[in-house]
């Protein structure tokens, strides 16, 4: 049986990769994908803990996280579409106006 901390290590590594993606990429779509990576890392942790303690509460949390991820992707990409229609770019560092 794989010890629980191996799962935690994998989740930590995935989380870090996601953070690097969010902080360094310019394309908002890739930034969103990195966010999904981060959420997945959290899910791995939750499921690993659920097995560790032998209860399904972690699974319930993971379901809610997936729900939130779906809502986030829908709204976030909706904003992206609206932004792209107005400014014709998908680069995060060109979004520097609060109002136009």
């Amino acid at each position, binding site marked *: *049986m*794989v*010890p629980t*901390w*191996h799962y*935690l290590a*994998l989740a*930590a590594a*995935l989380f*870090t*990769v*996601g*953070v*690097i*993606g969010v*902080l*360094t*990429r*310019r*394309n908002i*779509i*890739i930034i*969103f*994908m*990195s966010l*999904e*990576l981060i959420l*997945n890392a959290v*899910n*791995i942790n939750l*499921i*690993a803990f*659920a*097995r*560790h303690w*032998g209860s*399904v*509460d972690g*699974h*319930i949390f*993971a*379901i809610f996280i*997936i*729900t*939130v*991820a*779906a*809502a*986030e*992707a*829908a*709204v976030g*990409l*909706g904003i*992206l*579409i*609206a932004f*792209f229609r107005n400014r014709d770019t*998908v*680069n995060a560092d060109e979004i520097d106006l609060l109002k136009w």
Partner: protein
Amino acid sequence: MTFYEVTFYVLAVVALLSAILVITCRNPVHSAIFLVLTLLSVALIFLQLQAEFMAAVQIIVYIGGIMVLFLFVIMLVNLDVAVRQAPYNRQRWIAGFAALVLLAEFTLFIYQGRDWAKLPPAAAEAVQPNTELIGRALFQNYILPFEVASLLLLVAMVGAVLMAKQR
């Protein structure tokens, strides 16, 4: 090592490598394909952790739903311009350093928790039969979050449609 342990390490390597490719590919479509690979291996890791319902949900919602949304958006916005531009922003070195600090912190935490982690994990069969247990917990102990989730979805639906619709 048994077969299931080997599966975990193989899947972990695949997940990490494709995650790195997600954030390094220039073409968003390739990133999306590698993200699908990551999500798929995470789903198999769930399966290996006896979370069969979660594995199915991961594939249905993430790969069958959210990734389709991503690919749609990639096709809606013209990406040929994006491919030719510089993929990383100006603060990439600071950001990379910060991320490494984060990783060091994680390492420290896991190292400090090593005694706790030696506790034997509960028998994996404790979360079986998975769907029935999830149903019982979700609809008896977690009623309020469940109903709030429906509100969240309603708000997301309204918000997303308002954002995307032509004014």
